[in-house]
């Protein structure tokens, strides 16, 4: 009876010390994680006259939006990102919507209408999520050229939709697997057909699944680089990531403009992360298969 009491009395100060240490470590780590973004922000907010490598870590003495203005509108040898930002929006929105619809339908079929071999087909679809895209680039460019979609935004949309099929199918299939089989059977007894069950039973339950998949596709397509680089072989059609890479490669001296550009590219997905982080996390974990 006495033992635990003495134990906790001895342990208390040590425990408090561990606690303080724990917080110190966690706060230090959080600071390290934020460091690159901090650098981006303080640099991008500096007046051009204050931008110097030796004063990289100094706070701006006055706030200036010059860098953002240059990164967005261009000028003095810099190509602005405004057009690219619009291109990205034009690609991301339809690609995300189509991905959601396709993924939802595939997930419904593969979870509730299994047929002999459907599990094998599912595994074959999933493999598409792991391939390095270098291994399909050569024929992709050829096929897109031959159907007139090379160097066009619809070509980029099509590519994102196709290579998004594995992950969207996976997320929806796992999501629908949790819908009880009895619900579907009840629908069948009530005379609902394939689409009736989808519309009246599955869709009303699907909102969280759609949010997870939409956020996942939005984030990954917005951040994607390789397809954007290869397919939009035209400066006017570039998505933001390609525009940023171009800016960082060619405008080595104007690094404050690059940093402002980097923030512009990061803001949309960061906003989604801040407000809908829970759903983002679910999509992320689904990518490791078991969810």
């Amino acid at each position, binding site marked *: 009876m006495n033992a635990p009491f003495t134990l906790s009395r001895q342990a208390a100060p040590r425990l408090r010390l561990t606690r303080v240490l724990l917080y110190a470590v966690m706060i230090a780590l959080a600071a390290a994680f934020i460091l690159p973004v901090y650098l981006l922000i303080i640099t991008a907010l500096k007046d051009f006259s204050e931008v110097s490598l030796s004063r990289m870590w100094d706070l701006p003495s006055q706030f200036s939006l010059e860098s953002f203005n240059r990164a967005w509108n261009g000028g003095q040898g810099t190509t602005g990102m405004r057009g690219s930002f619009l291109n990205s929006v034009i690609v991301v929105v339809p690609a995300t919507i189509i991905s959601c619809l396709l993924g939802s339908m595939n997930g419904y079929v593969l979870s509730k209408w299994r047929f002999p071999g459907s599990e094998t087909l599912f595994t074959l679809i999933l*493999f598409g999520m792991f391939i390095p895209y270098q291994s399909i680039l050569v024929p992709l460019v050829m096929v897109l050229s031959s159907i007139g979609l090379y160097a066009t935004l619809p070509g980029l949309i099509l590519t994102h939709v196709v290579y998004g099929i594995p992950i969207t199918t996976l997320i929806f299939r796992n999501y629908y697997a949790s819908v009880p089989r009895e619900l579907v059977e009840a629908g069948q007894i009530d005379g609902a057909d394939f689409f009736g069950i989808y519309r009246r039973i599955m869709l009303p339950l699907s909102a969280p699944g759609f949010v997870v998949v939409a956020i996942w596709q939005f984030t990954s397509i917005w951040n994607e680089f390789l397809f954007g680089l290869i397919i939009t072989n035209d400066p006017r059609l570039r998505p933001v990531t390609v525009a940023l890479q171009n800016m960082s490669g060619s405008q080595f001296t104007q690094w404050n403009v690059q940093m402002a550009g980097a923030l512009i590219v*990061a803001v949309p997905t960061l906003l989604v992360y*801040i407000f809908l982080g829970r759903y983002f996390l679910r999509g992320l974990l689904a990518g490791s298969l078991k969810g």
Partner: protein
Amino acid sequence: MRLDLALPQKAAARSRRLSRDRLTAFLMLLPSLVAIAVFVYGFIGYTAYVSMSNYTTARIDLSFVGLDNYLNLFGQRRFQENIRNLIVFTSLFLVICLVFGLALALLVDSGVRGESVFRSIYLFPMAVSFIVTGVAWRWLFTPGDLEPTGLNLLFDSLGLGFLKARWIADTSVWPNIEVPGLKVKLLVPLAVIPVALAAVWQMSGFCMAMYLAGLRSIPDEIREAARVDGCSEWQVLRHITLPMLRPITLSAIIVLTHVSLKTFDLILTMTGGGPGNKTEVPSLYMYELRFSQFNTAEAAAVATILLILVSLLTVPYLVYNRRAQAAEQ
């Protein structure tokens, strides 16, 4: 009597409708199946075929040359460097990410206040593009020629000058061993380290999230019981928590390794493969072969090698995963 007749009729109608629904279901899946068959398997097959031909972008020559392109690649100093860099990058990234990710998960899971804030901060780089990461970290890891910049400057002002290094400008290889038969020196090109660290910054939060999900699925009672039995925290971790997290570790290794083998944008933005190809990996070399040197056949060979590497890792995992799911049902 009428009831007896009606029932089988109804059942027959239902089963007719069911088989029609099954057909509809298959037809709804068909477009995706065709797309995957063409864009994944067809394209891979074509790439493999091109990799055994004389195809250059200027001259479309699909005559079969066997494994010539592959033999040529493996004999190149540059491709040997690519493979060395890829192995070093992947090993560093994987090990640091796993250890660091686990540490973050244990910290966040230790019952501190504001755990969701810490978790969100550790995970946010996952929402950012590799290009953004590359731009930010390139400046942090630029050592500065005349006076220190980036992290070196920060270390100086914090009195941590001993941490200063040449980072992405470092051309040296450590320990620079010569191996008979190889055209490259081993083992670690020092410039790969900062690139791997930037990748860790981006992905360790993902690893943490996986471990956190794993930790949450371990019933508290098990760890509590061990503590009551007098196990130290270290023993609980070593003998209970870690073994129970083994499936998570396996998944994390597969996901992180395949991401690492495919890494392209981060390295392109941070170093462009330099200095002197010290950070170049096959994905970058493939891009250059195809789009700058217009040597399509050799580019396809590099791509196929990359695909084989990724497949060796992911195919067994997919098969294992499918078996495990089949066993559950």
